[in-house]
């Protein structure tokens, strides 16, 4: 029997479900990335980054999500990002690696160095693409601290989940 209270409860449930569905479809609020050991998560990094964490010796890990309006593939976006970064001659591309998250999402990791081995920095960009979003995981820091944090950074990238 439809009583007023029942109608109100049903309406509220419907609205809540729709809201949750909207949020889930957008993917922005549900992406997950493990905070590496030795890193601290920074609050309120929007709108540039969805998540950002930093180590005590200056290595930074961040995730940004952008709408995939052109519906580009992983190959397209990784190539576009690589060309844009290397348009700055300070960045020297040293490697490209295929990566997979624990959830099975395929991505590509672009590795760069800036400066010389003694005083320069390392910079990684891991790209994951869905039909709706382009996820860019950036991490960078001075050579020494970055190399020490490398295992944790790789583990964090594998833990990525777009939600």
């Amino acid at each position, binding site marked *: 029997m439809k009583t007023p209270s029942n109608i109100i409860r049903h309406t509220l449930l419907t609205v809540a479900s729709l809201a949750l569905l909207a949020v889930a479809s957008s993917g922005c609020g549900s992406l997950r990335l493990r905070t590496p050991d030795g890193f601290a998560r*920074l609050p309120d990094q929007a709108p*540039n980054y969805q998540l*950002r964490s*930093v180590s005590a*010796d*200056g290595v*930074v890990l*961040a995730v*940004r999500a*952008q709408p995939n309006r*052109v519906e580009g593939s992983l190959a397209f976006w990784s190539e*576009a*990002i690589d*060309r*844009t*970064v290397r*348009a*700055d*001659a*300070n*960045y020297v591309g040293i490697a490209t690696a295929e990566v997979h998250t624990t959830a099975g999402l395929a991505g590509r990791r672009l590795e760069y160095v*800036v*400066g*010389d*081995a*003694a*005083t*320069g*920095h390392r*910079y990684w*960009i891991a790209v994951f693409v869905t039909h709706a979003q382009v996820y*860019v995981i*950036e*991490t*960078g*820091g*001075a050579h020494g*601290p970055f190399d020490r944090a490398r295992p944790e950074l790789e583990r964090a990238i594998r833990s990525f989940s777009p939600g």
Partner: protein
Amino acid sequence: MEFAHRSKSGRLRAFAFVLAGVAAVAGCGAGSQSARPYRGTSYGGASAVTVASVSGGSGGDYGAEADSTSSRSRVDESPSAAMPTGSGVTASFPSPQAPSAAARTMTGVVTQRATTTPPATTSNSQASREPARTPDTSTQRMLIYTASMALMVDQVTASIDRAVAVAIEAGGFLAQRTDNSVQLRIPSPRFRDVFASLERLGDVQSRSVQAEDVSEQFHDLEVQLTNLRSVQHRLQEFLTRANNITEMLNVERELERISAQIDQIEGRMHFLQNRAQLSTISLALSPRPVVVLHGPDPVPHATMYLPSPQMSLAIDWLRELGLPRLLQLR
């Protein structure tokens, strides 16, 4: 001479004259024999040691030299020679030119004896007259490496410090340093390794390497040194057997001259050895226009020099990627 046609007194005078001549000749022989240090064994007997050891010659080789030495010995030893007082010969001191003349003669003698072919009689003389055998250096080249390199680096001072550390680690040392350049001395066996290590410090703008072969030059100096030392040794032996102050002064003067030549040659050889043992690398460093980032600072200040983009998609967020924005925490 027509003795038969002279009077008795005339014959007596002629006989006295002949006796005086014979006495003079005998005195010459005695004086000559006393100059044994300048004679060969064929002349002087057991006491003629030095010259024999140098020349080992038979009498025939030194006939002319013996004449000159005998005449010199007459001049040198006239104050002390046992000249017959009754012969009418006046003893006199040697003239001021005599010592130098004697020295020149002696030098000529030494030089001549040093260059004549040694007879197969005295092994010592043969060994001393031949140039001393030097180690076979024909297969070991002496190369002097000199290199220069221009590098573009992020931080000049730190790169210079690193270059010096590389040199020290290789057994070398810092020779010269300025604000943007450094000169390093590196052990030659490590030259290539160090040069390759220095190239990795930054972007090489230019490099040059020169190798100077001084093997022949060094070998020539070795031969000269050996010969001079041989001469020096003989002069030292002469000095021990000098019979008077004049001879000693002459020999010492020659010794001083030979020693000066030896010092000069040894100095030159040491210079070449040092240059060959330690290569020279000169580095000129200049700053590279790169991103300057302050890593661990809480709010790093980033300055980026961007060239013209080679490609531009109409996607603004692509240009937001990069280290400056990533490391600028808030």
